[in-house]
């Protein structure tokens, strides 16, 4: 927020007061009193406007790019080879696997084990194992921290996405990006601090407003979904016949009236409005500049496989780099089309084909620009896919699998070249070093310098946080 009013200290103070007024109810009067003494940047933080005056730990990551593979990618086809599964392909699922097991989402009856048709090999010096579906990612294996022992609590899509984003299956809770915006504020005064980009197949599961919701936090912490059309942010473009110059004149008139009214009624909120109209005006220039990929070099475009003007996951990856480069705190990319209940071989090939190169390019690009060091990249879906087949024969697919699956992270203080955790011999349950979604959240917050136990918001009498009341821990083994 302090950047927003750069050089206008009175506005800064006013804006802060307005903010405090809005949130006073949530913070309680004691916190309010201590916040009033807060001036300038928070310790260890770039940017401002967040409630955290001081980070709990030194931040290893300052911003996050979360690559969300919506629908749930298959861990046993990508990162977690299971020779026994291949050996027993076609046999009925051993009964012991169904202990402590939620009913399947769609499979009925007793399904058969299904091995993976892909060859796997150790990649890079670290020897992280990946399947042939990810030839590009193999070249940056040594940057990744692969977690093979993820666990979540549901096998239903939207509660599953809520779990990944909010730490609970419920609707109406803040998402990770909203928490970070609330805690850390924004580093950029011309762009929203939390941006959502979408791509993939239109017949995938729908993306709901709540996936980037602010929950009970102030709505300025809501994610802004960039649209695929000519206007990435709704109503960014002036109506026909109003050019930038004319809009400036109109804004000057509006501001003149607003300031005059402020003198009359002395309400600081009016100055906040003046500031937000100014930021809107700046966004009208900064967002098209940001989303105009044609300015990128040919080599960069081809590294990503991006094609300016033609929306794609590759474009979104490149856009993600441009966003974090400009200080946007949290960028989430939803890539749809991973929900392969049938025809998984075709569909996963299609998804990997579209995602493998751009993701690799993103990591390389961040690295060569020195951004990977303090940018945390997260990859994963809302769950994995069953090591058993749904539908038999050539058109087989895999059902939703919450008991064990793979995610990976890169940069931002994670330990590169690491494979963490193990699943059992069928890739069905976690065998070693389980990482619950809540543990992942605790670890992500830790990397950003936040203690998950201390980062709470009072709502309906409860101290609510991302990690909730159930046990959660920072997975130290994942940290560099």
């Amino acid at each position, binding site marked *: 927020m302090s950047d927003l009013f750069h050089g206008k200290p009175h506005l800064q103070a006013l804006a802060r*007061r*307005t903010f405090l*007024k809005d949130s*006073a*109810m949530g913070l309680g009067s*004691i916190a309010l009193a201590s916040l009033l003494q807060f001036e300038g940047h928070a310790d260890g933080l770039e940017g401002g406007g967040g409630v955290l005056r001081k980070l709990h730990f030194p931040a290893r990551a300052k911003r996050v790019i979360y690559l969300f593979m919506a629908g749930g990618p298959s861990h046993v086809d990508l990162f977690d080879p299971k020779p026994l599964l291949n050996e027993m392909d076609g046999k009925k699922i051993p009964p012991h696997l169904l202990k402590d097991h939620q*009913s399947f989402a*769609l499979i009925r009856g007793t399904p058969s084990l299904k091995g993976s048709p892909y060859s796997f090999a150790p990649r890079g010096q670290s020897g992280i194992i990946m399947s042939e579906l990810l030839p590009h990612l193999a070249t940056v294996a040594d940057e990744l921290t692969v977690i093979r022992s993820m666990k979540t609590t549901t096998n*239903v899509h*939207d509660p599953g996405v809520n779990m990944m984003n909010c730490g609970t299956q419920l*609707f*109406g809770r803040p998402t990770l990006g909203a928490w970070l915006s609330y805690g850390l504020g924004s580093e950029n005064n011309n762009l929203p601090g939390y941006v959502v980009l979408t791509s*993939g197949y*239109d017949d*995938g*599961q*729908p*993306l*709901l*407003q709540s996936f980037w919701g602010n929950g009970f936090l*102030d709505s*300025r912490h809501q994610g*802004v979904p960039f*649209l695929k*059309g000519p*206007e990435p*942010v*709704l*109503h*960014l473009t002036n*109506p026909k*016949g*109003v050019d930038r110059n*004319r*809009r400036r*004149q*109109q804004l000057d*008139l*509006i501001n*003149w*009236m*607003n300031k*005059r*009214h402020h003198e009359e*009624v*002395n*309400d*600081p*909120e*009016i100055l906040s*409005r003046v500031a*937000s*109209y100014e930021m*809107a*005006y700046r*966004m*009208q220039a900064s967002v098209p500049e940001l989303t105009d990929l044609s300015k990128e070099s040919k080599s960069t475009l081809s590294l990503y496989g991006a094609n300016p003007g033609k929306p794609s996951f590759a474009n979104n990856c490149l856009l993600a780099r441009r966003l974090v480069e400009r200080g946007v705190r949290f960028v989430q990319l939803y890539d749809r089309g991973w929900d392969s209940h049938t025809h998984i071989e075709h569909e996963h090939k299609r998804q990997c084909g579209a995602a493998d190169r751009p993701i690799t390019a993103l990591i390389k690009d961040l690295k060569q620009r020195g951004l990977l060091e303090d940018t945390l990249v997260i990859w994963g879906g809302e769950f994995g896919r069953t090591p058993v087949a749904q539908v038999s024969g050539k058109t087989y697919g895999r059902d939703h699998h919450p008991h064990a699956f793979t995610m990976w992270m890169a940069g931002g203080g994670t330990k590169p070249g690491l494979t963490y955790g193990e699943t059992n011999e069928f890739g069905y349950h976690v065998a070693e070093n389980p990482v619950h979604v809540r543990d992942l959240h605790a670890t992500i917050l830790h990397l950003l310098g936040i203690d998950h136990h201390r980062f709470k918001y009072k709502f*309906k*009498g*409860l101290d609510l946080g991302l990690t909730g009341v159930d046990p959660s821990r920072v997975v130290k083994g994942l940290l560099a």
Partner: protein
Amino acid sequence: MNGRILARTFALVFLAWVCLLDTWAQDSVRGGVLQFNRDVRPILADHCYACHGPDSHSRKAKLRLDQRASALGANREGAAIVPGKPELSEMVFRIHNKDPDEVMPPPELNKPLSPAEKEILVRWIAEGAKYEKHWAFELPDTATLSTVKKTDWERNSIDRFILARQERENTSPSIPANRETLIRRVTLDLTGLPPTPEEVAAFLRDNKQGAYERVVDRLMSSTAYAERRAQDWLDLARYADTRGFADDKMRRIWPWRDWVVRALGRNQPFDQFTIDQLAGDMLPEATDEQRLATGFHRNAPQARGQTYPVEEYRIKGVIDRVNTIGRVWLGLTLDCAECHDHKFDPITQRDYYSVLAIFNNVEHSGSGHGQGGPTMKYKLPPSKQDSANASERKRLKDALALALKAMPKPPSIKDEDIVGKWNGPVVEKDPQKYSLTKNLTISAKIRTKQPVADLVSKYDWRGKQRGYVFGIGGEGDKDSVPGHLFFWVSSRAESFHGITVYGSQPVNDGEEHVVAVEFVAGKSVRLFVDGIEDKAAKTTGAPPSFIAKSTRPLAIGAGYNSSPQANAYRFKGELGEVRLSDQAVGDQLTMGAAGKQVAELQAKLRKLDEQKGAPKIVDAVPVMRERAKPRDTFIHVRGSFLDKGDQVSPAVPELFAVSKESQPSNRLEFARWLVDGKNPLVARVVVNRFWQSYFGHGLVRTPDDFGAQGRPPSHPRLLDWLANEFVESGWDMKRIHRLIVTSATYRQSSRVPSDASGRDPENLLLAHMPRIRLPAEQIRDQALAVSGLLVRKVGGPPVYPVHPANYWKQRALPGKWTNSRGGDRHRRTMYAYWRRMALHPSLEILNAPARDNCVVRRDVANVPTQALVLLNDPIFTEAASAFASRLLTEVEGTDAQRLERAFRLALGRSPQPAELKQFLSFLEHQLEELIEDQAWALVCGALLNLDETITRP
């Protein structure tokens, strides 16, 4: 006393003494005796109750600090609290302890007490550790009004309470707002629309006593008032047009929304309003309106997936109902007790599921995407057009009756054209006879009251022997209408290939009728009643070019229920003159001029019926209906519906101390208990929200939490006074709203006093009126009203205001939004299609909630995307253009005169000279390059974007 305790005692005596000294020296404000509710409970609740509070499961050391008996133990040394003796109280020792194993609260809780909080606890124990029942659980006080010094300010009793606190804290009210501000404020607040320039002018002219009150009364009797109040209730009721969850399909619950507008418009007392909505279906002889009212709790999101465990998502719906009751009526966060006993308020998990047992008995059926609860067919109340049509219809019907009376006796088929004639029921012996295959005409004279009977049949579908059949009521087929004529003819015997015809009027009224049918193969079918062709008969299929040969014998006045019997659909009554022709001789059966007149009258009547427009019956409106046998309800251990704990029976939470005999056993009894006037919370919670709609915040600033963790009321005696007033007036909602808006407090200026931010940054004392940014709906409604676009039609199916093209597609959501055309494009925003998982983006950006659960207060943020909406959204640019052309056509005068009108429309005031000058120079500059309409659209756009415009002054 061992050495450890001795040392501890010495240390503590010293410590306590130092603390107290320090407190007294520093804080003279707190010189008086501490009050448990005001000073102590908030500290205990926040720092201690998590382990030493109402939740029996997480309770440590069997110690409760929310109950005096437990805290005092056997009242001896070393008990947690020893009244009057902090030095002997374990609590004091623990809170000052430095040893991480001993100190309370434990470090891992991350809830350390501040020095000031420790002092309060020590002092409170020193003063005798007096407990008070939580204020909100005591009945409202019947307060006497305080005396105040300033005696010329008060307009009603509200002001006395407000002023008393201001005087206590050495402040004073602001001056009254000027009249232009006042009428704009009260019109926006009460109706959600701005006052027209004419309304403002009339108010400014009215110098007689009570001018303001007259404005208030005019506004409160308008439909717009009911709509605006309904809008708040829709947030609480989580009303939306879709079911929620990923599926998010539309459902037809808008008749319930219109019920709310009607109920609030006629000022239904709040107790009845409550009972109708929670249990209207269970009232003796419940009316359709009362059943419709129960849609309130069917607004709960309802999953319809195929993969969900059905029971889990049914339970989620019931849980939503209980939580909503908690927030809307009780002001309690009951939801906390879904998984465990409440940590801060005396609500156990058993309490929670006892309430759930009351709401757990609604039918729930279907599977997969057909899942859902009970519904009703709702007949819409008649509109004005309907009653106009009704009198016209009566006129036509009377004329028709006269014309029919004057009609001569209708003819039947001429003898030379027939192949057979019969009187009375009979079955032909020879099944080969009368198998007509091409054209045919049948006439008969009947008198009957039967709804279903065959007249002439060679048609047995059960026996796969189809041919032709003429009769009444279509053998009970689902598409037929009982009592009306029908004719079926098929070109295939085994399966139906042909045409069905159903008459548009009854012939079973017990009067004599001549009925007839003419079939022209491959061409047409006509029905006749009393010599007049039935032009409104409904046909399905095409006339076949030939008729199948049925092996069944021709039956007169009978049909076939299964071959070979011929006794079903037997005709009872008078049946004569049955004539069958193998030619198309329908023209013989019409009645010339007299018939023509009747036909014309009938056509007019039909046209009138078609004009009705929107369907008068709305199918499948979700409502509540109780199961005959209540479900068994169990505590869900840790909130899991699979993990069943003790079985519970219906009951209200124990804290309300209802005896076993008087426990409500069902929804109706529960609803009546809520509003019996003896509940300490309900009236307070409701009037607090009324207050919030005018002042931005309630007297209790946590409107859905009146419990230990909520904020205490800023004016407890005012809250109690309003609550008592509400109940004693017979739960008269308009009375409370009127009291608030006619108070002097409400009429103050909204200028923020220069010292406000330091002295009273939250404006708790209400020493000025807060300015409030308009809700999303009102920002659009106002733009439409100002520009002259607004269409004031009340209620009906949701409408579709202009929406960004392909927005859902870009957001990867199924479905397509088609912008409303005509008047519906510019209806009030409360009627916009409310999709839970993707609200209209402009409404969302302007902080309207998607209503996936109960919203007690909207948060209003100020973000740049709002500016983009107001500047560039076609909704607003269209309004700006319409506003401009309105000025250009309505005002024939100078630009200054147009600006005068523009300001009056948008802001309810004239421009000041400097403003006029600024706008004129802007306009002049724009006109250098733009045509008049464009330049004025920019002016109008600027006006619609002003903070002053979008803020309730």
